[in-house]
Structures are given as structure tokens and as C-alpha cells.
């Protein structure tokens, strides 16, 4: 029971971090970044290469953060900036193209076979005490890391000027600009934080599953993307809750379904998603209010 709860909380935490990364960028750019999972994949490859060459762990982690954040900024400069103001479907498909591109590069460079990344292997050990046997240290670390990151982000958004700018930009980008918020600075910061979170997620995921391949984190990203929309992308906290909830749901389904049905976890999760979207299309956690006229 405790194991189920902790596993659910851990997956929910990781998904919440990813949801924040996707939600922050959506807030300022109105762009759903399908390539987010490939950022995490790139970070995982950095860790795998590090352990292949026997680099010290802190160097591997540093390289991982550098690559993920660098790629994330590069994406903003090369793609998001020229496409700013394009139609949502164009932007979405453009991030599809980048996801496809990064995945193909990984396939070309590293091949389809798994590379194993040994990073902080001691974190995978179970916490040794009776009934907690199968609770691994990384489960607890993931939850704590997520809480720390979310608290830091909340403080940044609530207490600093740049946080205020970012919140203003998410609420109404044009008005915020007219009032003196510098668009490029706010967007760059959002992309930077989003990249930082992707790097954190990549370290956590690699510790949990050290086998890195070109589709690493792809399924997680799809589930989180679905989760943020179900939660409500218009606000950061609803998107985060959406990511957390879908992580918890996925984990509970995985633990509780009998082994014959366990392969259908995705169907159960996605079925639930469709149900929620039909009942609350504006987002599961969006505040209740009279529904307006549908806008195209």
C-alpha cells in the first residue's frame, strides 16, 4: 500500500516537473512543445556517454545540464523566435519536426540499441527496513527534488520582478509588452527554466531506468502533454496539477491492474483522459465559470 502511494507520488512529481517545463513555455509563447521529451533524451545520452568514458559523476551531470539547457535555448532562437505569432498548428508541427530531428540524430549517432548510464547507482538501492523493502531511495529523492523545484519556482514567480513580468506575460502578452515587459528576456528565461527542469527530470529518469535509447522518455512526454491539457494549460498551476494527477493515475493503474490487464495501462489512462475532456473541456482544475462563446 505504502509502496503504491510512494510510487504514485514519485511518478506524479516527475510528471509535475515536466508539466511545469511545458506549461512555462506555453504561458509566454502559446506553444506546446512536443520536443520536450527529446530534450530529456539528449540529457540522458549525455549521462550515458559520461559513464561510458568514466567521467566523474558531477561532470556527467554538469554536461547533461549544459546540453539540455543549450539545446533548449537553441530551439528558442532557431525555431520559436522566427515562428512567433504563427498559427498554433504550424508551431505545433514545427516542434514535431524538431522532436523528429533530435530523435533521428540520436538514432544516427548512437544507433537503436540501448546504452546504459550508471549514475548515482546507490540511489536505486531499496531503503532497508522491513515493509519499506521495495521503496527505493530515488523514489523519495524524486519527490523531494520536485517539491524543492516547485517551491523555488513559486518564490521566483511570486517574489521577484522578473517573476512578476513572467506572470504578466502569461496572462496577456501584448498588454504586458505595452507596459514595458521585455518580451525576449521573459521568453528566454522561461525557456531556460524549462530546460533546467528537463535536465533535472533526465537525471531522475536515468537513475530509475538506466537504459538510454532514442525513444527515451517519449511515452512519458506524451502522457504529460495529455496531462497538462487535461489539467488546463491556461494557468501554470492547473497544468502542473494535471501533470501530477496523470502521473499518479498512471502509476496506480500500473500497480493495481492484474498482470493480464497491465499491458492496457495506456488505454485506461487515455480513456480516462477522454472522459475528463468531455466533462471538463476547459481543464479539470480550471475555475468554474460560465462558459463563453467558442472562439476559433
Amino acid at each position, binding site marked *: 500500500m505504502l509502496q503504491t502511494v510512494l510510487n504514485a507520488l514519485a511518478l506524479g512529481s516527475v510528471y509535475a516537473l515536466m508539466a511545469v517545463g511545458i506549461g512555462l513555455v506555453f504561458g509566454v509563447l502559446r506553444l506546446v512543445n512536443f520536443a520536450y521529451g527529446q530534450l530529456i533524451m539528449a540529457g540522458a545520452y549525455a549521462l550515458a556517454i559520461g559513464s561510458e568514458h568514466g567521467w566523474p559523476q558531477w561532470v556527467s551531470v554538469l554536461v547533461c545540464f549544459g546540453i539540455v539547457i543549450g539545446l533548449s535555448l537553441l530551439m528558442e532562437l532557431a525555431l520559436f523566435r522566427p515562428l512567433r505569432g504563427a498559427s498554433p498548428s504550424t508551431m505545433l508541427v514545427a516542434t514535431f519536426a524538431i522532436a523528429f530531428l533530435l530523435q533521428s540524430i540520436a538514432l544516427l549517432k548512437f544507433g537503436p540499441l540501448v546504452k546504459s548510464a550508471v549514475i548515482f547507482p546507490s540511489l536505486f538501492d531499496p531503503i532497508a527496513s522491513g515493509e519499506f523493502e521495495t521503496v527505493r531511495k530515488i523514489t523519495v529523492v524524486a519527490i523531494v527534488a520536485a517539491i524543492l523545484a516547485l517551491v523555488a519556482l513559486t518564490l521566483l514567480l511570486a517574489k521577484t520582478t522578473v517573476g512578476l513580468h513572467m506572470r504578466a506575460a502569461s496572462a496577456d502578452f501584448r498588454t504586458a509588452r505595452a507596459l514595458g515587459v521585455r518580451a525576449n528576456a521573459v521568453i528566454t528565461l522561461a525557456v531556460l527554466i524549462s530546460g533546467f527542469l528537463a535536465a533535472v527530470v533526465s537525471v531522475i529518469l536515468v537513475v530509475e531506468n538506466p537504459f538510454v535509447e532514442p525513444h527515451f522518455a517519449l511515452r512519458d512526454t506524451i502522457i504529460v502533454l495529455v496531462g497538462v491539457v487535461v489539467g488546463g494549460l491556461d494557468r501554470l498551476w492547473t497544468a502542473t496539477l494535471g501533470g501530477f494527477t496523470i502521473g499518479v493515475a498512471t502509476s496506480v493503474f500500473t500497480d493495481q491492474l492484474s498482470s493480464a490487464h497491465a*499491458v*492496457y495501462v*495506456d*488505454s485506461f489512462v*487515455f480513456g480516462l483522459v477522454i472522459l475528463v475532456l*468531455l466533462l471538463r473541456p476547459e481543464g479539470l482544475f480550471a475555475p468554474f465559470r460560465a462558459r463563453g462563446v*467558442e472562439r476559433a
Partner: protein
Amino acid sequence: MTYVDRIVQVAVPGLLVSGVALLGSFTTRANEIHFRVALVHVAIVVGLYLFIGNSGVLSFGHISFVAVGAFLAGLMTISVGVKRGILPDLFPVLRNHSVGNVESLLLAAAFGAVFAFLIGLPLMRLSGLAAGIATFAVLGITHNVLFNYTKIGPGATALTNIPETTGLLQGLVGALIAIVVAWAYQLSRFGRLLRASREDAAAAQAVGVSIHSQRLIAFTLSGALCGFAGGLYVHYAGTITTEDVYLDLTFLTLAMLVVGGVGSLLGAVVGALLISGLDAFLTTAEGGIHVAGWKIDLQDGTHLVVLGIVMALVLVLYPAGITGSREARIPRRWRRRPAEAEG
């Protein structure tokens, strides 16, 4: 719109695919396969266009209809004796019957339509991002079930021994059918009502257009086309796995549509042909070719990387697609009004 305009609207895409098929008939046997796959892509992308282009709602779920069409058409054309041997778990109705090529395509189209109708019934109430994600969830479920449920298909293994009947002729006829259906739809009353709702949902509702039922009609029809295209696909490839009709194909066909121009039939056809052509060229280049005195010899797997770069580049340079770049804000159909209408 004059009579001539309407004919041109269908004739130009039709001639384009006919030209491609004709070109394919002159190439070597080894190169012909690229032309066949291009024609199948045209059929799929036109199926996508019929819904996405006319409704303005992005759908990630259409490859589910391609998938069920492909698996159904594939299963039903494998001979009964072979099926009993390789797929003993199938439901008896699937295992003990077998149909011909054309019947299997019609079956795929019919099943695609029914599947799309049942899904669309609740889902077409959604719009915007919620609709896109809900259709994505449908794709996820379809893939998950096809991958694991061995009573309706091969599960995680490949379905093989499918007759390869989609040659250039069948590919061409299939693509032309898709184009004519999409054309007839967009000129019909239903097509116009749906596009009216795309341009201004509130105004369309105010004059009595039921957005839900108009979208449902388009979704069902495009489900039929996609199921049909799935049948073409499986008879082109001769073998299929669930991964063949999942994320990569979804991405590729959507990119074709957006690169060509979401809002026009011509865009769908041009996008499908251009990207297929580029992919074919790059794949060939991995084997080494000579172009204008240059020897090009790419590393295996490079074609995917170059394809990704080109697609991103086209989207940055022509956000409204190659055919629609002049109307950057609202994608309109490719045909422009006569000059005097603009003053």
C-alpha cells in the same frame, strides 16, 4: 466560383498525381516503390485534409483510422489456410473468411467510417487543444489495443503474407478517389457550412449551423478515406506492424499537410508529393548517387535528419505552407479571387 474554377480545383491535383504515377512507370523496378508510397501518402494526407483543413481543428488521431483500415484489409486478404497457421488466436469471423483486393479496400473504408463516427460522436463537441489531445488519446488507445490484443490482429509481431496489390495503377486510382471525394465534399453544402464555422464559430452558430454535426460528417468521411488509404498502404507494403502506423506516420503526414498548406486540397497533395519525393531522394542518396557531377553518398539514417531539418526550415520560411504563403493569417483555399475583387 465559376464552373471552370471548380474543375481546375480538382484537375490540378489530379494531374499532379497522374504525372507522378506516369513518371513512376518509366523508372526501374527498384525506384518504382518510391512512387507507389508517394501515392499512398497522398491518399492519407488528403484524408487528413478533409477534416483538418475544412474544420480548422487539429487531429492527431487520424492514423488510428489508417491503422484499423490497414490491419483489417491486411487480415482479410491473407488466405484462410495461412491465417489458421500463423494467427490461431484470431476471432473466428476474422480467421475463417477471406476477401479479394477491392472488397478489402471497401471494407477498410467502411470500418474507418464507422470507427470515426463512433469516436466523433462524443469527441466532436471539443475544439482547439482539447480536441487535438482527445484525438491523440484515441491514437494511443488504438495502438495499445492493436499491440496487445491478439484476437483482432498479430499483436506485437508483424502481419505478413499480405498480397502486394497496390501497384502504380491502384495507387493512382486510390489517390484520385481520395482527391475527388475531398473536392466534392468541400464544394458541397456540408463543406461550406463547416468552413463557415471554421472562420467564425459564433456567426455560423447564429445562422443555424450545428458545428457538432458538421464536424461529425467531415470526421466520418475523412475516417472513411483514411481507412481506405490504410488498405492501400498495407497492400503496398505487404507487411505491417503497429509501429508503422503510429507516431512517426502521424508526424510525417501532419508535416506533409502543414508544409503543403493546411487549408487547401492542392496543399495536401503538393505537401505529400514533395516530402515523399525528398524522402525518396535522400534514401537513394544513402546508397550513393551522382547529381550534376557531384557524388553524394550519405550515411545510413541521414535521410531522417535532413527531412527533419527541411521540414522545420519550410515551416519557418512559409508558416502557412508552400501553397498558402500569401494568406499568412487565415489559411484559405489555394484559389485566389480575381484581381478586381481586391480593388
